[in-house]
């Protein structure tokens, strides 16, 4: 009975401490106006991703041959495409694809890279050497070149684009987490854990990993924008989403031939990528300044 009591008290203590810590971070984040406004736009984008199919002004799939390639107007805010489909509606449903690919690719790369980095940094010796040499080999390829090679092997398609981008993101996450792990490993509280005979897996998961989380979060946010551009680039090159898909890069690729005739077909999908990546980068910068001030530039 008394033991339970103590545990509860400890949890409460930890919670309040974390809470005030969180509030402090939030206050310092709010000072960065640009990052704060970017967060609002990101929330708006997330709402579009969630409710997309229910809020489109028109059916994004419905062709209307009476109104093809119409310039933006009050009826069609972003104009219509070569089938008379409403571009704005297609952009809204496409947000899921474009953002989804970027986010899932970076998350996948982050998970794989974090596992490799923790193992590499914690166990050292030959394990570390093998993992780091493999990373070195992958670092010898420019990112997009590696992704293009991967998609060439796996074949085009959204799933393979995710794998390709995750594949080139993994080594950088591995290297960063390894660096952090090497430093954390030497700290006194880890030595204490070791001396009481804690299992290695427990030390890694309960003590080393939590210390690396803030760095990982910052790095994830900083990378999502780039991943969205990479995914859109692959679709634009015809290696990603199918040309009929409302993915933003694929929309741009499909409308290349209409340059000079229907510029809105090119302008709006690209603008959507640009704004999304811009707010993600601004937010990432703000988050880094708060969570990881030592890497501030």
């Amino acid at each position, binding site marked *: 009975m008394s033991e339970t009591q103590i545990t509860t008290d400890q949890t409460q203590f930890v919670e309040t401490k974390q809470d005030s810590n969180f509030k402090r971070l939030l206050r310092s984040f709010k000072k960065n106006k640009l990052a704060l406004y970017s967060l609002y736009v990101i929330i708006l984008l997330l709402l579009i991703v969630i409710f997309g199919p229910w809020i489109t002004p028109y059916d994004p799939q419905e062709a209307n041959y009476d109104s093809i390639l119409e310039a933006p107007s009050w009826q069609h805010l972003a104009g219509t495409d070569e089938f008379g489909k409403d571009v704005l509606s297609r952009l809204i449903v496409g947000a899921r694809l474009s953002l989804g690919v970027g986010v899932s690719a970076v998350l996948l790369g982050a998970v794989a890279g974090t596992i490799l980095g923790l193992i590499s940094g914690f166990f050292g010796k030959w394990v570390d050497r093998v993992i780091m040499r493999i990373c070195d*080999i992958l670092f010898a390829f420019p990112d997009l070149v590696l992704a293009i090679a991967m998609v060439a092997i796996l074949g085009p398609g959204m799933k393979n684009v995710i794998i390709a981008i995750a594949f080139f993101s993994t080594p950088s996450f591995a290297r960063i987490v390894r660096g952090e792990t090497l430093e954390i490993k030497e700290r006194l509280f880890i030595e204490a854990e070791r001396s009481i005979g804690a299992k290695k897996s427990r030390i890694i998961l309960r003590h080393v990993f939590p210390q690396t989380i803030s760095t990982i979060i910052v790095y994830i946010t900083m990378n999502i924008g780039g991943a969205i*551009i990479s995914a*859109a680039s692959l679709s634009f090159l015809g290696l990603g989403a199918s040309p009929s898909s409302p993915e933003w890069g694929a929309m741009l690729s499909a409308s290349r031939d209409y340059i000079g005739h229907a510029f809105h077909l090119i302008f709006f999908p690209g603008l959507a990528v640009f704004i999304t990546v*811009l707010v*993600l*980068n601004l937010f990432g*910068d703000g988050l880094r300044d708060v969570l990881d001030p030592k890497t501030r530039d």
Partner: protein
Amino acid sequence: MGRYIIKRIIGLIPLLLAVSFLIFIFIHLIPGDPARLMAGKDATNDEVEALRTYLGLDKPILEQYFIYMKELFQGDLGHSLRSNAPVTQLFGERFLPSLQLSILSIGWAMLIGILLGVISAVFRGRWPDYFGTITAISGISVPNFWLGLVMIQLFAVQFNIFPAGGIETWKGYVLPSFALGAGIMAMITRFTRSSLVQTLQEDFIRTARSRGLGERAIIFGHALKKSMITVLTIAGLQFGFLLGGSIVVETVFSFPGMGRLLIDSIQFRDYPVVQSLLLIFSLEFILVNLIVDILYGFFNPKIRYN
């Protein structure tokens, strides 16, 4: 210094071997039978088998790799499946335009990037700084293929100042190099600014000020000289971005370079060309990183002796 360079170059040999092996395996993992593809749709099974033996594709994969490496050292990159031309000849036609495009892009990006970075750092916290920062973060966030298409619309379709594609005259390089350099310019602006802001707070700058040196002499003569080390490193690291970006930008502008050759060759499953291009791209990237490392060691003796 010479010793350091030799040590660095020798250290690259295992990496180069590993990279070439990985690319070789990559290409062999691509689904589809190159022998059947080359023989054409109407070929009989016997003809395909004969071609397979002729190409050496029936040999064990490791043996194929050794043969490939032997030929590589003799300067033989194989023949294109599509045009049957030697791969080296295809590269001969494409390499120079791509190299010129890269140099132009990184050239203007460094010039404008450093200038904007210096202005931002000097006017820190005032409107020129905000202008520089917004330009920089926009440059990083803009997809270069979109920037390229928007510029085609503006400068080729609307005002007809520059061509939308092709490189018959120097004008053909202007729009592609702008689209390709924008992201790099943005990175260089950011790093010049941050590095200069840091340097301007150091003691030797205070000393220079106390000696009564003009602000211009302090920034260009003292501070920027030190910050250039960081800027050079960043410019070198951006080269990978440039190689990847060139693939996309060359496609937008129908630019006859290596990047577009890669996309065309992937679409036609022209494996010998894809393989050699991947090798060249990674080789270029490794070489540029080596040069950056050596320059870094040159400016910063501490690194050399470790």
